[in-house]
């Protein structure tokens, strides 16, 4: 069994009247950055707390490397997590914050200096964490997560409060960590933050997983991917493409839009039938579009209301 995997199965969790998790199931595979995306109050943090054994689910279970979190010895050597960057004792120095964590995992103090170096806090190591900016605290949180050199890394909104330089650094770090074969679960409520680094996306809304897919698959599957076609014979093209399985709309007497077929398939179908066309363009939706589609699809169940209530 690979150590670098998170499996979440059927999590259900209620906080009083709020059903925070309503059957959450997904897998964060090894060697990939899994984007965990959803609007405020969707249940991302709750899911992460359940994975870390901090909150007990009413139903379902989460396993890390095949084991329930509570069964892990020296868990920071298996799972590194950033749950709340503000969680520091203000009067304790960054180094000492990491030192007690290292002690708890029987790690050498040398690891502390190594991770401080990794996150670029070596110079601030002996400063009190209470004086740190939010960005510095995020880095300290990342350092804590990396302390045990774990195969699984879970980061709850790591981009919060980071400046552009920090975001670039963080994206690079995440890519590197995934390339080393680790499983990364990174939550965000902005799809754009994860565009370009996430290989695998889990979209959550109102406690339910709305989509779980590889990033390409997700984009392709999205109803928004359309092929725009310029042709002098729209009616003929319509017939051909319809036969090929595309959902085709005649826009005007020189243009068609096709969905359900990739541009390549459109060209092939038209070529076989000798239909003349002048221009084929694919309107690829951004991840953001996909995300809005998914979450607005949830609107009938009130996702937007939840979103509104959280703001």
């Amino acid at each position, binding site marked *: 069994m690979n150590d670098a995997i998170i499996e979440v199965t059927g999590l259900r969790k209620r906080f009083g009247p709020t059903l925070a998790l309503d059957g959450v199931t997904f897998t964060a595979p090894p060697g990939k950055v899994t984007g965990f995306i959803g609007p405020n109050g969707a249940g991302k943090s709750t899911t992460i*707390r359940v994975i870390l054994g901090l909150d007990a689910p009413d139903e379902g279970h989460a396993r890390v490397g095949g*084991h329930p979190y509570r069964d892990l010895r*020296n*868990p920071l050597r298996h799972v590194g997590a950033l749950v709340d960057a503000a969680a520091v*004792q203000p009067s*304790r120095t960054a180094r000492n914050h990491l030192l*007690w964590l290292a002690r708890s995992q029987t790690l050498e103090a040398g690891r502390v200096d190594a991770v401080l170096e990794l996150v670029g806090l070596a110079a601030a190591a002996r400063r009190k964490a209470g004086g740190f900016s939010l960005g510095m605290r995020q880095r300290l949180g990342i350092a804590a997560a990396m302390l045990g050199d774990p195969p699984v890394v879970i980061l709850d909104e790591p981009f919060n409060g980071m400046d552009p330089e920090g975001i670039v650094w963080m994206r690079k770090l995440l890519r590197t960590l995934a390339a080393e074969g680790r499983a990364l679960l990174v939550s965000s409520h902005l799809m754009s933050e994860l565009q370009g680094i996430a290989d695998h996306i889990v979209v959550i809304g109102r406690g339910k997983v709305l989509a779980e897919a590889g990033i390409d698959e997700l984009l392709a599957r999205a109803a928004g991917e359309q092929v725009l076609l310029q042709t002098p014979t729209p009616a003929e093209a319509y017939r051909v493409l319809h036969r090929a399985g595309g959902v085709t709309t005649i826009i005007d007497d020189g243009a068609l839009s096709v969905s359900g077929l990739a541009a390549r398939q459109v060209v092939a179908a038209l070529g076989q039938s000798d239909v003349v066309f002048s221009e084929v363009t694919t309107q690829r939706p951004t991840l953001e579009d996909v995300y809005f589609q998914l979450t607005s699809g949830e609107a009938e169940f009130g996702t937007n209301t939840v979103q509104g209530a959280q703001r």
Partner: protein
Amino acid sequence: MTTTSTPPLLAGTPERARFTAVLRAEWTKFRTVRGWVIAPIMAAVLCVVFTFLVANGTHTDFCTGTGNCTAGHAFVPTGPKGQAVADSYYTLGGRLTGDGTITTQVTSLTGVISTAPTDVAPSQAQQTRPGVPAWAKAGILLRPSTRQGSAYAAVMVTGGHGDRFQYDYSHDDAGRPGPVSAGSPHWLRLTRTGDTLTGYDSTNGTTWTRTGTAHLTGLPATVYAGLFVTSPVSFQTSASGARTLATATFDHTVIDGSATPSAWHGQSIGAGEQDFYPTLRAGSYHRAGGSLVVSGSGDIAPAVVQGLLGADTASSSLPFGLTVALIVLIVVATMFVTAEYRRGLIRITFAAIPGRHRVLAAKAVVIGAVAFVIAAVAAATAVPLGEHILHANGAYVFPAGALTVVRIVAGAAALAAVTAVAVLAVGTITRKSAAAVAGGIVVFVLPSIIGSISSGGAVQWLYRLTPAAGLSVLQALPRSAQVDYPYTFANGYYPLAPWAGFGVLAAWAALVLGIAAVLLRRRDA
């Protein structure tokens, strides 16, 4: 990644090593917050300072029977082991050289009790009613000398405890039960063989039963031996006690086969104004035919504080300073856990150490050890300092043996440790600093504060049932089964024995710890 080389998850590290890691983590947490290091040191300093101030504010006056009061204190004899003793009685006797046997028959023991309390001068306390205190004593005494506080052995009849053999103030063996009367006289015999003194009693003067034996090492060849009568303060009718006097009739007093030597003379021991023990009057004797009628007042027994003496002890200046230190330690113990909840740090802790009970246990060990060391250092400094200041101010400080002082210091340390652990548990339950500090103080400090400023029977229950019972470890005054005395809190006695009182506190701590442990498991972090 190192993880691939880590041993399998579920096998491996023994429980002890795992706990050691958690302990080291919690200790690192503690020592890396400067305030948490400074505050306990301040607690120790405050404890010493307040003990000094309390001791320094204590002044005692010593009032003689004639109503003159001066700074200083009455004379309290010191027994063979350094303990405070009462040694006041009337005796009729003389020198005895070498081995020997004294025999007598006690045919009556009667007495009177003053109708005035002991805080009235003896001259005004001569109005009496008949009565014999249960520990009024009449019998045969043998000791190196009549110097107060010296070793002795005696066989005696008593007002209410039958015949006894006693030696060196604290040893007591029971003989035949029942009071003395003309119809049922008691025979007594004391023999000396080398260093060994043996007491006997008999109903007829021919068949003897051994009552007890004492080995008084280093007993000189020539000792003092004779008859004695004494009668202690009675607390039956008055909380401050009433002076008493007992009168016994001795017949057939024989020394080594010869009748009472004419060289025997009567003397009153410890009846002077300087002696702390209240006596009705000096005592006397006269011959009536073949009988000797002896009256005496006082006691030969361990000293308990008889009101007049005040209750200054090795630990009497300590409670206030200790309470101040406890409050500081309570705040630190609370913060040690509630600060983590406040900052959300508790989630990092429980993610790193999923065994939450292990975290609670490690925190308890750390804060308990800190409190223990701090209170031990504070008490070990404050107790001798307080004692020294009290002495310097002329107060009588009830002598405490080295063991008692060690127990007081260790007890104060254990008290602080258990309180800190208990409050840590309260903090774990409330998760809020203010609530935990308030709760900790109300439950673990307030009862003793209330106890120290109020009086009456309810106070006894406070020190029996609430965490204030823990203060019993500071008990410096001895109890004695040979002294009838109101061993009340007002007189300086906690109702429970030191470790029993500590057990009550520990039970409270165990209760809150148990609640905390259950909640930790049940609640989300």
